[in-house]
């Protein structure tokens, strides 16, 4: 084929030489097709007119990654977020950015013996963290999924998350599952843009203003701990938690991933996570793994501890125990 270039046909090829006669018609055809094309394009893009103003702004597009923001940048962004929350959800939040404390690594343990499956933790999570919900009963976006499991083995295949009626029942026990804040976290490895990372105190956070919404982290998580905002979050005005934090419970934008942060806006200031505070059985133990005197360390040293999906090599900071 390469040597064909030397053997051009001496006659003009069909089409190439007939230009002058057809040029007017060709031009009209091309112009007609062009007009039809542009009209079609405009018609196709018409739904974009329904974009809410402020849904995508230039300052959002130009915002840098959380770790590269100066304090001034961050203050400005938080002021903007607060204003947005007030405009769209009718509540003016107290927006902060609480940092990790030195010498702290959070750990969480949950007693499978004590838990009765009341799901108050799952509801408290929603009240604290401003997740989207369709109605009062809707806890799909809660960071805690409570599994009702058949006694005899710890096998998630026998579990039911949508159980109803009185709890506990004789045949079952309960296993609440939330983010395990893994030391070898598959989700942070997966993220292509470093929008999610482990903080110095071990909490895995998401920069909701940086996440591109690819959901690779959700595929990577062995604990089904991440939630996605498929649309704009629905949070009724009367249940918005106004105490909001940049890397945890502020109302998320549409199209980004969110997850449990061990309520870092509370726990970094010495309070307990909302799910622990509400637990009626005392099944939940939270504390500093680096403090040898902490209750969590007592549990890890003295109780029979179970690690969910230990074989996936995630080295969680969340433990189950018996007793």
């Amino acid at each position, binding site marked *: *084929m*390469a040597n064909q*270039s*030397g*053997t*051009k046909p001496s006659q003009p*090829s*069909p*089409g*190439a030489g007939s230009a002058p006669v057809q040029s007017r018609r060709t031009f009209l055809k091309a112009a007609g097709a062009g007009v039809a094309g542009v009209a*079609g*394009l405009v*018609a*196709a*893009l018409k*739904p*974009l007119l329904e*974009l809410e103003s402020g849904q*995508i702004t230039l300052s*959002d597009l130009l915002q840098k*990654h959380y770790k590269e923001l100066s304090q001034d940048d961050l203050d400005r962004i938080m002021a903007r977020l607060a204003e947005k929350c007030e405009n769209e959800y009718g509540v003016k939040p107290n927006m902060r950015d609480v940092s990790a404390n030195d010498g702290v690594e959070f750990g969480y343990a949950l007693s499978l013996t004590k838990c009765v499956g009341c799901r108050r933790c799952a509801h408290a999570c929603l009240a604290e963290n401003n997740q989207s919900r369709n109605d009062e009963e809707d806890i799909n976006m809660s960071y805690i*999924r409570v*599994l009702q499991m058949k006694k005899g083995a710890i*096998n*998630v*295949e*026998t*579990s039911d*998350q949508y159980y109803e009626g009185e709890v506990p029942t004789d045949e079952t026990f309960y296993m609440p599952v939330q983010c395990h804040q893994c030391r070898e976290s*598959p989700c942070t*490895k997966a*993220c*292509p*843009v*470093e*929008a999610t990372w482990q903080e110095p105190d071990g909490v895995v956070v998401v920069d909701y203003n940086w*996440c*591109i*919404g*690819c*959901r*690779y982290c*959700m*595929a990577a*998580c*062995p*604990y*089904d701990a*991440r*939630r*996605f*905002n*498929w*649309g*704009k979050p629905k949070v009724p005005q009367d249940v918005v938690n106004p105490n909001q934090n940049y890397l945890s419970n502020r109302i998320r934008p549409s*199209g*980004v991933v969110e997850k449990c942060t061990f309520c870092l806006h509370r726990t970094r200031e010495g309070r307990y996570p909302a799910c622990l505070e509400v637990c009626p059985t005392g099944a939940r133990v939270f504390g500093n793994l680096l403090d040898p005197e902490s209750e969590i360390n007592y549990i890890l040293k003295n109780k029979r501890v179970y690690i969910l999906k230990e*074989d*996936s*090599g995630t080295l969680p900071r969340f433990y189950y125990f018996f007793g």
Partner: protein
Amino acid sequence: MSFQGGGGYYLLMGILAILSLVGLNAYAKQFVAGLESTGLTDQVSWGAYIANFTFLVGVAAAAVMLVIPAYVYKNKAMHEVVLFGELMAIAVIVMCLLFVTVDLGRPDRFLHLIPPFGKMNFPISMLSWDVIVLNGYLILNLHICGYLLYCKFRGKQPTKKFYVPVVFIAIIWAVSIHTVTAFLYVGLAGRPFWNHPIVAPRFLASAFAAGPALLIITFQFIRKMAHFTISNESILLLRKIITVAMLVNIFLLGCEVFTEFYSGTYHVVSAQYLFLGLHGHDKLVPWIWAAISMNAVAMILLVLPVSQKLGVLNIACLLLFVGIWIEKGMGLIIPGFVPTPLGQVVEYQPTLNETLICMGIWAFGALVYSWMLRMAIPILKGQLSASPGKA
């Protein structure tokens, strides 16, 4: 001029353009509403978009099955058609990139992926690798096709050092795009259905069957529509390649099915969902068995001498292409999410809007490919040239 008669070409382009616009319209709706407009859930968080993406990466990589005979084994028949394979790789990579883009929750932030604007998590995230290898493959093929066509257009002999090294890089690169895409899934320890080493080799085997199958059909189409001489020899060589790839693919499927079902560990549940249904949920079951039947029939036809007849070969290619599209698409992605890591069974069904977006991207890919052929064929035939009079 390339599609003689003209009318057929414009009709085809018109239809493809309309379908693309319908897809664009559906995407504009999704852009406003968010991914709520899809059938995806927190439980099954990837669906039709990623399934089509995964399959098409294979089709793009398959151009290498023309390139290797043409450049490594200096097969003359393949050399005449190799450019059509490389052009197809370009169109298909464009489709891949579109499928990933429409899957993003925040497409407005795509710059976050691209250094220096963004913060690419390289080399840790397999997705960052995928961004690099896919775009790299696109650039390599654009260079090869662009350079060769340009030389032909100017009536020059192409200078080997400007493209032959790139061709060889592209061969390795083609393997890498599919391997990296497989590793996206293989690397996830929390998803046992994907987390085993045979996935990547199977990806390659099925790709080297599905891609050339599409090329066989395309070549005949080009031959007929554009009166471009393509010898049967190249088509029959592709048939041999497909046959081997298909046999390897089916063998590896057998290995997979045996390991899952014979040992029957708890890993088997996703495969159970796919092949048999789980707790009464069986939306994928008819699809996967249809795919397996199509692949089986295609394989039998291919190994029989009767498929040297183009009519039979075309049937085999069509069956195989659709079969692998189901199996390497939805059949691979969805069971990875069912059941969830916490044992929950949630089924996925694409919405109409989602389906229209997929259709739009397929149409747009075909549009891009047809348009590139429209440019390339007259140049290759010597009808379109910078200096038609001389040389």
